[in-house]
């Protein structure tokens, strides 16, 4: 491999990583205690849930779609899992796996509905998932009677604080998911098809492939990651609430887009998404540690998101020149 090719690969796969490294360096210099193991471990925990949701969101966006319902569906999943886990008639050994199953199933069912409606009637996912955002929120308020569920079994809560060498368990789960997703996207036929359809759906369809199956599956994958994120949320905060998750869709979309995935589909990677989520997490953490006020933090975070994507357009040009 010559240097040109290595530079090309670095730019293409992890270009936005430069921004992350830069931010970390700046904060390390100006914010005492930023670069401590403890603080980094905190950031890992804080970005885990967004990362997991953003993995599913990446599949959907790679196909040129969008899923606005993830925040509401997340709330629905936590409540269903919370109801299962606190059911007294169930022995604990069964309640925990059943709760995970309930959460994943609910997420996947919502995803299946989103994908199926989009494909069956050829409606843009923006509209369908906007509808689902409301339906899931209404459903969860109905099911829970707008009450929060708490007092999960101690055995369940214990998982939430587990960490290995300072790396929290929930972050390990998130990274594993990114790696599995990355493998699927880059090394399997299914993954190649996702990119192909995202680039030119018509061409793929005309070459005799059933594109619908792939698009619906992407939504189901997104639902599944939301179901998993719901369990991580419950592990982290030991609570299931019908009003949580407002605005989570925007954080997930931001992570995906900052990570270099094109909103029109066909281009992007999950490693980029992980870096995107990390950039958001590092910004929230570092700016707060600097003692910046909430208002100023919002302005700076927003500006850096835009700046990161502008830098990304230069990266794309540079990588085109190199290839």
């Amino acid at each position: 491999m010559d240097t040109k090719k290595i530079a090309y690969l670095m730019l293409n796969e992890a270009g936005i990583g430069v921004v992350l490294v830069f931010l970390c360096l700046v904060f390390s210099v100006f914010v005492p205690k930023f670069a401590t193991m403890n603080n980094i471990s905190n950031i890992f925990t804080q970005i885990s849930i967004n990362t997991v949701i953003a993995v599913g969101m990446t599949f959907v966006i790679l196909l040129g779609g969008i899923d606005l319902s993830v925040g509401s569906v997340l709330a629905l999943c936590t409540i269903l899992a919370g109801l299962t886990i606190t059911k007294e008639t169930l022995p604990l050994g069964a309640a925990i796996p059943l709760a995970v199953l309930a959460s994943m199933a609910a997420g996947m069912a919502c995803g299946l509905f989103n994908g199926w409606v989009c494909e069956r009637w050829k409606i843009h996912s923006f509209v369908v998932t906007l509808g689902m955002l409301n339906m899931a929120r209404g459903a969860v308020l109905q099911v829970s009677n707008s009450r929060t569920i708490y007092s999960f079994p101690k055995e369940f809560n214990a998982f939430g604080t587990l960490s290995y060498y300072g790396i929290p368990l929930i972050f390990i789960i998130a990274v594993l998911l990114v790696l599995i997703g990355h493998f699927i996207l880059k090394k399997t036929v299914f993954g190649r098809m996702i990119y192909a359809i995202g680039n030119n759906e018509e061409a793929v369809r005309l070459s005799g492939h059933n594109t619908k199956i792939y698009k619906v599956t992407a939504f189901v994958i997104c639902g599944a990651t939301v179901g998993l994120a719901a369990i991580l949320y419950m592990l982290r905060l030991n609570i299931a609430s019908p009003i949580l998750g407002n605005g989570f869709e925007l954080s997930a979309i931001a992570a995906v887009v900052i990570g270099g995935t094109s909103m029109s589909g066909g281009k992007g990677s999950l490693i980029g998404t992980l870096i995107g989520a990390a950039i958001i997490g590092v910004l929230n953490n570092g700016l707060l540690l600097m003692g910046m006020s909430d208002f100023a933090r919002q302005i700076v975070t927003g500006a850096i998101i835009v700046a990161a994507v502008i830098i990304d357009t230069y990266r794309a040009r540079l990588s085109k020149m190199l290839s």
Partner: protein
Amino acid sequence: MKKFFAVALLFALALTMCGTVFAADKKPVVGLVMKSLSNEHFKKMEEGVRKYTEEDGSYELIARGMNSETDIDTQISIIENFIAQGIDVMCIAPADSMGIAPFVKKAVDAGIVVVNFDNPLDKKALTDNGLPEDFVYVGPNDEYGAYLVAKYMGETLGKGAKVILLEGSPGADNARQRQNGFLQGVEETGLVVLADQTAHWEIEEANTVLTNLLTIHGDEVQGVITAADGMAVGSIKALEAAGLGGKVLVSGYDNQDQVRPLLLEDKLAATVDQFGATNAYEAIKVGIRIMNGEKLSGWIKTPSELVTKNDLK
């Protein structure tokens, strides 16, 4: 022509039916306009008020709420529908202290007795819309409640103890009042504020913000004062994760069901109860008294009480 008659007949029928319904029912109709029913505070309020109404039996209740805390449009349409319906008394917890004032004026002009509760209308917005500045308001004093809990924390921790404050959404009136109350209590008892940050009433955000603040202040913080129980729950999790569980005193606000076990386990030091349902019922009774000719105005205070573990027994 036949169609026209059919439609006209239907209309006439519908009108007489409405007429008979109203004629048969001499009880005053009270419209209760709440904020978000997805908020446990208002959900409990709704259930409580329904129970009181059943026991009382002297009025008809129509309770309405919105989907989200800041959904001003929906609240305005609820008010307009009440005006069209011609109810007798309207009790309203405004979603926006200023934006709702013109519609309160509309309702007043339509002959409805309006009582403001839960969240006070802005004084300037009231006078700007031709309403009296001392427009009747039935509700708790958030500033006082917040002062109570901050003072309790200060007395328990002792002078010079260091605390972190987690506030509600900036811009919300009750968030601002609670902040003022906290600062009064903190000052009076000589607490030192390490940081005063918002967590927008959110559990997850409170967890994140406090975790990050603990990175700087973890070895000196002795107390965390929060403006909502949910934020207290998020804070307690953050402290536990940082190995400070049980070492730092945490307070909440609202006395929601979810904090009961936390109070009993000494994880939460205190919270404040503002009795949402009794407050709304009080507002309804005030409205009926005004309808019957009494002159009431200004702030009719409802209680705010400090709740600690000892109060649960």
